């Protein structure tokens, strides 16, 4: 190592350590503190212009929903599930046979679903216009196909011994229970209601929209070249819905839920600095029910506050990003103020100045039950919705 190298090493020794530091100490305000503490504010913001919040009904109808609710709540509320299957064919193919074999008779049928109770055969021709009153006469003993006792069909869990709250219900009924009339093209329509010796009978069945449709498998006898053989045929489910009484009318207040589903829109005009130029630390939407949440006792509903992508009133498209929505669960009978944490929504708005500052309130799944909640509007002084926002104003960097 010659001296030039040593000099270089010395130079590196001087330069090398010149850029490191570690310093953290407690402050003692105000004398030994930064000039300005974070500018925190906590304020109550009301929706824009009184009367501009709106409620609409008709988004999702009963036949479009993912769950079919059955309930018998005394004489006040009643709902029943309806299914209609494709026509039973008059001839079928056996195994790999290419020849159509005529169906001689129906031996039995298998009706599985998430849950079911009393099964009635209804006149065919169900559609979206079918009402509770239209089918009510068919729910009589003479048309009862079978009664499924849920407790006896869904066994307890072998490990826990507890009976699951959901499962697949499957029961075989004799073919003689069905009337498959040629004048009906072999179409079978069923209705299901609920009954219980105590309490409010309540069940929810899967719908075709949830990819859990009702399935009817017919075990039929087929004439196979003079011999009689059995096979199973499963016509597709053509239509399912549930009907109920009483029907829902026009929305009252800011209504969410019900069938067809109701939504409500709330528009905000935030003071400068709350959303666009600051950081929101916490934001809570406060909604005051006008009356106890309506529905079957014990049933709950999820209310979603979803930012709208454009404000077209009832037809406002919703922002699909999960950052723009928040949820809260409400239970039938609730009377307290409902609080929805909108912190992520307001933070997301901070980065999207072009989005309208409006949220649509809706239920999820929509039209999946009879639960409905009616919140006060901007014109109902004691029940006015509001948003509590804790936020930080822009820090005054560079000020001395």
């Amino acid at each position: 190592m010659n001296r030039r190298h040593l000099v270089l090493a010395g130079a590196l020794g001087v330069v090398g350590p010149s850029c490191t530091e570690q310093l953290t100490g407690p402050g003692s305000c105000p004398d030994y503190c930064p000039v300005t503490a974070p500018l925190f504010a906590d304020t109550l913001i009301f929706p824009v212009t009184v009367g501009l919040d709106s409620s609409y009904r008709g988004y999702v109808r009963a036949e479009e929903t993912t769950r079919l609710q059955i309930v018998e709540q005394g004489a006040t509320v009643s709902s029943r599930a309806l299914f209609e299957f494709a026509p039973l064919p008059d001839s079928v193919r056996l195994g790999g046979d290419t020849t159509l074999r005529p169906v001689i008779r129906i031996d039995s049928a298998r009706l599985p679903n998430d849950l079911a109770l009393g099964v009635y055969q209804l006149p065919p021709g169900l559609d979206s216009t079918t009402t509770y009153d239209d089918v009510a006469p068919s729910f009589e003993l003479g048309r009862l196909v079978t009664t499924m006792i849920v407790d006896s069909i869904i066994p307890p869990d072998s490990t826990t011994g507890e009976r699951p709250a959901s499962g697949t219900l499957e029961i075989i009924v004799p073919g003689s229970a069905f009337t498959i009339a040629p004048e009906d093209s072999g179409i079978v329509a069923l209705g299901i209601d609920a009954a219980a010796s105590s309490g409010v009978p309540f069940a929810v069945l899967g719908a075709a929209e949830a990819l859990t449709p009702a399935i009817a498998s017919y075990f039929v006898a087929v004439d196979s070249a003079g011999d009689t053989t059995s096979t199973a045929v499963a016509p597709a489910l053509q239509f399912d819905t549930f009907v109920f009484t009483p029907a829902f009318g026009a929305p009252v207040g800011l209504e969410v839920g019900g069938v067809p589903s109701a939504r409500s829109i709330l528009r905000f005009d935030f003071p400068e600095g709350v959303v666009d130029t600051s950081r929101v630390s916490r934001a809570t939407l406060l909604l005051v029910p006008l009356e106890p949440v309506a529905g079957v006792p014990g049933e709950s509903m999820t209310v979603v506050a979803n930012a709208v992508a454009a404000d077209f009133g009832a037809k406002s498209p919703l922002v699909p990003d999960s950052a723009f929505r928040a949820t809260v669960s409400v239970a039938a009978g609730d009377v307290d103020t409902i609080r929805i944490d909108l912190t992520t929504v307001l933070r997301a708005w901070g980065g999207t100045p072009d989005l309208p500052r409006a949220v649509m309130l809706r239920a999820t799944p929509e039209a999946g039950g009879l639960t409905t909640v009616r919140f006060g509007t901007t014109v109902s002084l004691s029940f006015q919705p509001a948003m509590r926002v804790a936020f930080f104003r822009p820090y005054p960097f560079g000020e001395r």
Partner: protein
Amino acid sequence: MGRWLVGLAIGLVLLPQVGAAQDSYYSMRGLGHPSRPIGARSRGSAGAFAPFDPGSGVNPATAARIARLTASASTLVTNRTVQGEGIDASLRQTRFPVASLTGPFFFRTVYSVRVGPYLARSHEVSTQDTVLARDQLVAVRDRYRTDGGTSDISFLLAKRLRPNLDVAGSFHVLLGSARVNTVRTFEDTTYQEYVESAVESFDGLGVSVGVIFLPSQLLGLAGYARSDGNLKTTVNGVTTNTTDLPLTLGGGVAGLIANELRLAASIEWASWSKAQVTAQSFDTFSFAAGLELGPLARSARLGVRYATLPFGPTKQPTETAVAGGFGFGFAGGRGALDFAVERAWRSDDQLEEKLWVVSAGLTVRP
């Protein structure tokens, strides 16, 4: 000698492991802590020789006697403890106090380009408090960190007018930035953490003149004056603050008392009270005295210093320091290494800071 140098170089690299902070709590609400552009050689005498030291940046006339291309740099490591007002902290920081490149220019002038610190703004504080939110007191913890400062880049021309008279003028560009980060966390985690950061940029201009007069071979006198304009602070291109910077006047005297024993004293005043800041600002005064023993190629130094500081919450803080150091040349006078250790005490009526400052400098004349 070779083993010495290797050992020293390694020691310098390891210095940050034991070092600490030069900034000050007193400047937290001011512009920053004014940095002394003093090289390791002068720091060993507590700054007493600074008006005569080409490795320091206070007096531009010191460059006039440099006859060949010279590069110098020094590093500074500070270990600081702070006590008082509920504060008990141990901090450390490493900085590059001054670096320069000096060499002959036209018409027997000497140029020099120097880079040194001007205002240090590096500190991080953590506080706890409560805020009222939704009619309840919520506990919060705030952290505020600023990392950076303002550097002084100077371009000077010096000339020996007569064998015993050196003069110089310098143009200063003040540039710098600090990354500022403020964070608030809530004990109630339903409140989201708040984080905001920005880069503050600083710029300004200044001029300075200096003179060194040697009335005899045993006595030297130095004087300098510096006027800085305004320091402009910008954030995201927007000027957020403009502050007056001080006029600085200083001088020194050095004498050869006995064979290989040199004594020096320096004095400096600056009008920092012009600065418009949240804290109180005061004019500053400093006085240093020191000695250097031995030939320049191998010397030891001692010194003491008293100074008042420019920013404080109420009462003007003061600083007292003692320093010692040594230096030696190598490579036939083409290089020099200097080391200094300084112990300083700062206080006002509420807070006390104690500092260990270790400095090392290298001068090379290729």
